[in-house]
């Protein structure tokens, strides 16, 4: 069995105030993660206030863009093409929801090393995703 990756139409996400820098960086091929200058921890999804210590001294840092598949699932009945939703644990230590792309989806495994890549959504927005390292 093989389930080749196919490009999928991704609706433009609704950005809340404060989300734009993340997607502007993605358009430049960079993955950002929020970091807290008080408790020195990364968090994701990004907040204005650190969810661990509630400091407002949070800032965007560029992530290495490498990580490990924490879990995944191949959706075979939710759209015109199959797609792989996943959580990837970044080397910075936080896990983010994403898609695994550019591979035979049936070969994805928990614990697999992956690296960031970028795919276009509608409306010119660019979305970070991951492919096998």
């Amino acid at each position, binding site marked *: 069995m093989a389930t080749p990756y196919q490009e999928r139409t991704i609706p433009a996400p609704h950005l809340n105030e404060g989300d734009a820098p993340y997607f502007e960086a993605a358009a430049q091929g960079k993955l950002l993660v929020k970091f807290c200058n008080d408790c020195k921890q990364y968090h994701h999804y990004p907040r204005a206030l650190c969810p661990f210590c509630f400091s407002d001294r949070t800032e965007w840092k560029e992530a290495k863009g490498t990580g490990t598949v924490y879990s995944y*699932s191949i959706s075979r009945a939710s759209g015109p093409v199959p797609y792989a939703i996943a959580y990837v644990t970044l080397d910075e230590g936080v896990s983010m929801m994403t898609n695994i792309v550019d591979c035979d989806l049936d070969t994805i495994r928990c614990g697999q090393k992956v690296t960031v890549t970028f795919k276009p959504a509608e409306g010119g927005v660019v979305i970070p995703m991951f492919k096998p390292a």
Partner: protein
Amino acid sequence: MSIRGKAYVVGIYEHPARKIENKSLARLHAEVAKGALEDAGLTTRDVDAYFCSSDAPGLGGINMIDYLGLTVRHSDSTNTGGSSYLYHVAHAAETIAAGKCNVALVTCAGFGRRGTLARDHGADVPEGAFETPYGPVTLNLYAMAAMRHMYQYGTTSEQLAWVKVAASHHAQHNPNALLKKVLTVEDVVNSPLIADPLHRMDCCVVTDSGGAVIVAKPEVAKSLKRPLVKLIGAGESPKGQMGGKVDLTYTGAVRSGPIAFDEAGVKPSDIKYASIYDSFTITVVMTLEDLGFCRKGEGGKFVMDGNLISGVGKLPFNTDGGGMCNNHPGNRGGITKIIEAVRQLRGESHPKVQVRNCDIALAHGTGGSLGTRHGSATLIMERE
């Protein structure tokens, strides 16, 4: 202040329909309210508190309070998805214990929608832009919890299938159940893989239906002609992504369970019957572990070989057929979990599935998604 012994479930009603046309949503809420009041031997004039979730039309409870012709001094529209109604029963007991109401009505009703579709939680949810592009739907989010459980603990598809099989053994005796066919492990694992590792038959049914529950203070309960079902413990806890420290191997039941057991003064081994929220087979396996019915990671082994089948296994569960086979009204299985637990304590479950000497029962709800954020709620009830 504890709710232990301060409130009783005096009325229950499950709508018999599973596919509904030509009835409004408000009417469905009214029909289940009427059914539960008649079951209790009460009228709308006795109700002084109303609880509903976002499945009820309108602004909180106020539109339905008006439609139902109620005069209430307390209302609560807590929405934690399918577990809302377990939160409501607990909150009703707290309100009664505080002397703020005597008789609380809880309603749930809705038309089903497919779990393969995206859910819209509104534009302002803070995670929206960081999740919606990836196509999260109810099904694939629960599937990720299952996939990780399999990876970390060696849980198998065959083990998960036993949850559906056990529910189907119960559903064959329920004339209202949507699926009444007895299933085998092979039936489940050979059904189409729709979100790896979950098959179509790992999912609950999608139904149009509803249910209602009446909670009352002891003086009211003891004046009625129904068997006495007393609330002795309740716990609630949401769980999320923890700022990116995502762990999909456990549920909020790790907190709601101990709170409820401590309040009730009982242990998992004292529970004769358990209603366990069964949106998907994995939901049951993880919840049983987290409530302490078996050790962490051993839920797959625990559910095997009919261990959840009444009269066969150690822990009879969802003897109405559960969300797996009977009913999941409007994609919300919480109200039916409470209802079947009360039937068991009253001795009113179907004779083929009635647990002998059922004196203590548990009902547990999981609303939202195991894969992102969910609200867990546990109720423990005792026959008096």
